[in-house]
């Protein structure tokens, strides 16, 4: 299976509204998920200027799926679903 691609926005709005808490997300991944996830930091995803997406911080998953108001917990849950679902 392809690894799950996570892009965490580190632009100003996202960073201040909680992306800062996701900087350590890699360390929180269970060992068996580590090589199945590919996590990257991104400059402003340009979603913050739109008001219909649910609010920063934003994370982009597998290139298309947008998670708004992301938290480490929400993100870990979603990563889990994608990995387990694919297994």
């Amino acid at each position, binding site marked *: 299976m392809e690894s799950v691609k996570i892009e*965490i926005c*580190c632009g100003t709005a996202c960073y201040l*509204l909680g992306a800062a808490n996701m900087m350590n997300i*890699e360390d929180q991944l269970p060992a068996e998920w580590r090589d199945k996830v590919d996590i990257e930091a*991104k400059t402003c*995803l*340009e979603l913050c200027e739109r008001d219909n997406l649910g609010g920063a911080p934003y994370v982009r998953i597998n290139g298309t799926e947008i998670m708004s108001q992301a938290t480490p917990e929400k993100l870990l849950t979603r990563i889990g679903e994608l990995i387990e679902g694919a297994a």
Partner: protein
Amino acid sequence: MADLPLNGQNTASDLFIEMEAAQFTKSGQAACGDDVRFLTVEKENRHLVALSDGLGSGVKANVLATMTTAMAIEFLKSNIPTLEAVEIIMDSLPVCEVRKIGYATFSLFDFRLGGKARISEMGNPGYIHLRGTEEISPLKDGQIVSEHWPDREVRECEVDFRAGDRIIMCSDGVTQSGLGVRKDMKFGWRRSGVLAFARERIAREPDISARDLSHAIAREALNITPGGCKDDISCAVVYLRHPRVMRVLTGPPYYKEHDAEYARQALLGADHVVACGGTTANILERELGVKIKVRLADMKASGGLPPIGTIEGIGIATEGILTLGRVLSALEQMRPPEAEPAAARAILERMMRHDRIEFIIGTKVNESHQDPNIPQDLELRRSVVKRIAAALEKNYRKKVALNYY
């Protein structure tokens, strides 16, 4: 500060003079008995340095040295003849109770861009003039003696100071380091030791900045002396060269149609480019077809600011307003870069290494920064950059240009 049109070419042709000094205070003393002062007379394109070593050490010596450099710089600026200046200085220094003399040495450097430099010295180790690693002799070398103070000889030299040249001036705490404590250096490090050291450093690092060279010399003088600083150590270096240009792009242009031209500024005539702000980085990616990479390892070590990315072949990218705010406070309070979070430190260190800093400022306001949920007030980019420019000029003698899009 100038609002200059940038064309990428006019920046490299003018010369920049870098004047820096490094000092260590004699162990156990509260104040350094040496003083170094710089002055740039912008209108005349003229650059002055005064380095003085006050008799003795501690606060008393400090007063003598500071009075000397303050007066000397003032007299140089007003073109008062050296002899007269020296007499006024000697006559006005407070006399030491014990020694019955008032005394401070000096080395003075006076240079107009495009002309010759004049160096006057009294009591300090002789200056060193290097072109690359080659030592250059003065065009003229003379002595003048005051009638009032017949035992004080002033050496006056005229020097052919060209692009790429360096002048090194120091207090005897440098040349006499090691004296009496090192068997292999009976007379201390001496001027010849400093000269050999400087040549060796320049051979290894031909572009070494005045700042780095002065620090290297002062540090070496300290290292030579076992058990701490025996005398105040001061080393000033003047380096004339083509300016190193750093360009900071920040914020999206007001009109989207200007994006392409704005992005092109990252490619023209700068040694280093920093993109400050997510949207800025995105514009560069889009317009120049470059990739910006943020390493996850950097994300963790970013110390309270969003992480740094690299723009292949061009420079670095950071977050915008938070990072700039941090850079501003460090510059205004003159905090050393080392203690700052990674992104601010990266920008500050680059600023220190460059002579001319050009800001390309996009003036579009980022709507998302007005979000009432954001836990702090975000200042306007324009005003932060203006204050950064002022601090760079005032506290770090950098040349700054601002250009708006």
